[in-house]
């Protein structure tokens, strides 16, 4: 390097440049608006149109909400109070909220029972969803379904207790016998559980007064409660069933594989609503008369089967996305099939499948409103078949449907947020 160059290149700073605030027009809101909303003439037009639409919506919506009345006990009284001004007639929600939530047949004096069951849901579900919580809390999660059944349907506590005992006995028998043969284990477990259930049925009939809550018939279930019951039960049943179907579809045993393929393809090929009609009419036709196989149970079975076929396909996608090496690594370490599925394959496949599973779950929850078509009074059924059909409130569409949307939205948005949180928690691949 030459001397002249060295003089021009060498440089030593002797004083610090003090930090200065950015120029006024470049910072803050003005800059943001200009950059984001008016950067080109096209963007400017879009912005103006959007502003107009927002103003138009709000100018209708705000008076409707603010002027709305919660007084009055019929649509006529409502109109009187409003005196021709725009405004919602929210009095219908105030007057009919218990129907919206519980249906019109559930005895109002017993509403505390489903409410309590709902409150306990917030104790039972978190241990299953947030794995940082202590494991022992899962005990309550396991007890909850039986407790909730007892609270909502009433009757003697012996029935749900024996239902639970039957499951436990079945499981224990399965674990014992499974070592010899899987199918034999399954069969023995089924027999053992059935014996316990039958025995429980006899005892429950005999001692029907023990710890007895006033029984409520399945027909009486309605309102958003019915949607929640169907949604929660069907999602929690269809996930394990979907996993089994997905694994079955990969099975090397032709019988198992064939059964799963046919089942999945058939269920996916028919609309849910037809399955519900089948549940409503035909199942009852096939069953021996006098069997107490109630409608809710039939509907739960149908929705569960329907959702599990979709979940199975979502999970199959997750399984297919795993490199073959993961299976081989599990095999080469001597893990058996059940172990490598449970410890290696499913945790990864399910993680990949979360968005798809949540999609199915949210869709399933909303599809529970289809039961209104087979004359069950869920939230939609109650609004259409009971409230709007009444003389007092006919014509109050907006208020009711907006309320219904809001209820579903809260639950579905919650599910969606949870799934995003879960995905972040499980991100260990550091890509």
């Amino acid at each position, binding site marked *: 390097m030459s001397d002249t160059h060295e003089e021009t290149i060498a440089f030593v700073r002797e004083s610090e440049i003090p930090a200065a605030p950015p120029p006024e027009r470049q910072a803050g809101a003005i800059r943001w608006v200009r950059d984001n909303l008016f950067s080109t003439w096209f963007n400017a037009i879009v912005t103006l149109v959007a502003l107009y639409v927002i103003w138009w919506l709000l100018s209708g919506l705000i008076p409707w909400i603010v002027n709305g009345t919660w007084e009055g006990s019929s649509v006529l009284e409502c109109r009187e109070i409003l005196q021709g001004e725009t405004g919602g007639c929210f009095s219908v929600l105030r007057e009919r909220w218990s129907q919206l939530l519980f249906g019109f047949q559930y005895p109002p004096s017993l509403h505390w029972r489903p409410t309590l069951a709902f409150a306990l849901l917030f104790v039972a579900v978190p241990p299953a969803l947030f794995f940082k919580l202590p494991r022992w809390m899962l005990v309550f999660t396991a007890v909850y379904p039986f407790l909730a059944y007892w609270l909502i349907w009433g009757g003697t506590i012996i029935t749900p207790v024996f239902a639970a005992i039957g499951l436990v006995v079945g499981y224990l028998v399965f674990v014992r016998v499974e070592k010899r043969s899987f199918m034999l284990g399954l069969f023995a477990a089924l027999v053992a559980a059935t014996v316990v259930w039958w025995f429980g049925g006899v005892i429950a009939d005999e001692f029907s007064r023990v710890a007895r809550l006033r029984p409520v018939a399945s027909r009486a279930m309605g309102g958003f409660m019915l949607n929640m019951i169907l949604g929660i039960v069907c999602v929690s049943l269809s996930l394990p069933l979907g996993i089994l179907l997905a694994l079955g579809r990969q099975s090397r045993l032709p019988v198992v594989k064939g059964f799963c393929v046919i089942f999945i393809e058939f269920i996916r090929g028919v609309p849910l609503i037809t399955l519900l009609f089948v549940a409503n009419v035909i199942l009852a036709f096939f069953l021996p008369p006098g069997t107490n196989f109630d409608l809710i149970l039939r509907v739960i079975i149908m929705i569960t089967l329907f959702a599990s076929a979709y979940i199975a396909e979502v999970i199959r996608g997750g399984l297919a996305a795993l*490199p073959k*090496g*993961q299976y*081989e*690594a599990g*095999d*080469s*370490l*001597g*893990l*058996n099939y059940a*172990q490598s599925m449970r*410890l*290696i394959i499913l*945790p*990864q496949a399910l*993680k990949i499948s979360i968005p798809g599973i949540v999609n199915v779950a949210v869709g399933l929850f909303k599809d529970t409103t289809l039961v209104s078509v087979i004359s069950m009074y869920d939230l939609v059924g109650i609004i259409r078949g009971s409230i709007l059909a009444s003389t007092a409130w006919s014509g109050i569409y907006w208020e009711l449907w907006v309320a219904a949307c809001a209820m579903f939205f809260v639950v579905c948005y919650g599910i969606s947020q949870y799934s995003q949180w879960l995905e972040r928690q*499980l991100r*260990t*691949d*550091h*890509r």
Partner: protein
Amino acid sequence: MTMTDTNPSGMKVSDEIAIEIRNMNKWYGQFHVLRDIDLTVRQGERIVVCGPSGSGKSTLIRCINALEEHQQGSIVVDGVPLSSDIKNIDRIRSEVGMCFQHFNLFPHLTILENCTLAPIWVRKVPKREAEETAMYFLEKVKIPDQARKYPGQLSGGQQQRVAIARSLCMRPRIMLFDEPTSALDPEMIKEVLDTMIQLAEEGMTMICVTHEMGFARQVANRVIFMDAGQIVEQNEPEAFFKNPQNERTKLFLSQILGH
């Protein structure tokens, strides 16, 4: 072919037979991948398998722990015949460790959990004890400080060493390696080979598919050359490299040693 009881570096080989393969044949559909394979591996022996791509090296060692099924002939590992009996297969797999070209660590588990999973579930070792064993082997492969990390946070060489440690945690009597270094950058190859050499010096029975001829010279008792699904030539490393007999072996060696 002559066999000595010690190899160049003086490591002991016992008379006990670890793996015995007799007349083994395997087809993929119509394609005859492995033809009349006969191979006896004694306890403590270190065998390097080499050969051109597609010659069936991976298939051969994957047959030993039943990742692939063979259709003819017999394989006996540690006295247990490899049949379609799932109990025998599980037993053999828990005695035979395997390292893959692409590591195949479990990405959803930490390094420590990767290492303790099989001992806990297959060997029913208590968790505490399994973790101690895992730390012992992680120290051995020189990455104890990474135990709480996930595989995705480690370099390729480190991942392969974890994979070796994971296999060792099962205390296998035999280790199989399928091109453990061929997915690695040159500077990482050495750290993995060093680990393998250390393992060999401790007397582990090993079958390695590798093209690392330096490694073969240093630790192998025998080098096996495969082509078109057959064992074409096998010999002590010294003789194998200096004086190959078969034309195909000569060609292969000239290709990989040529540059």
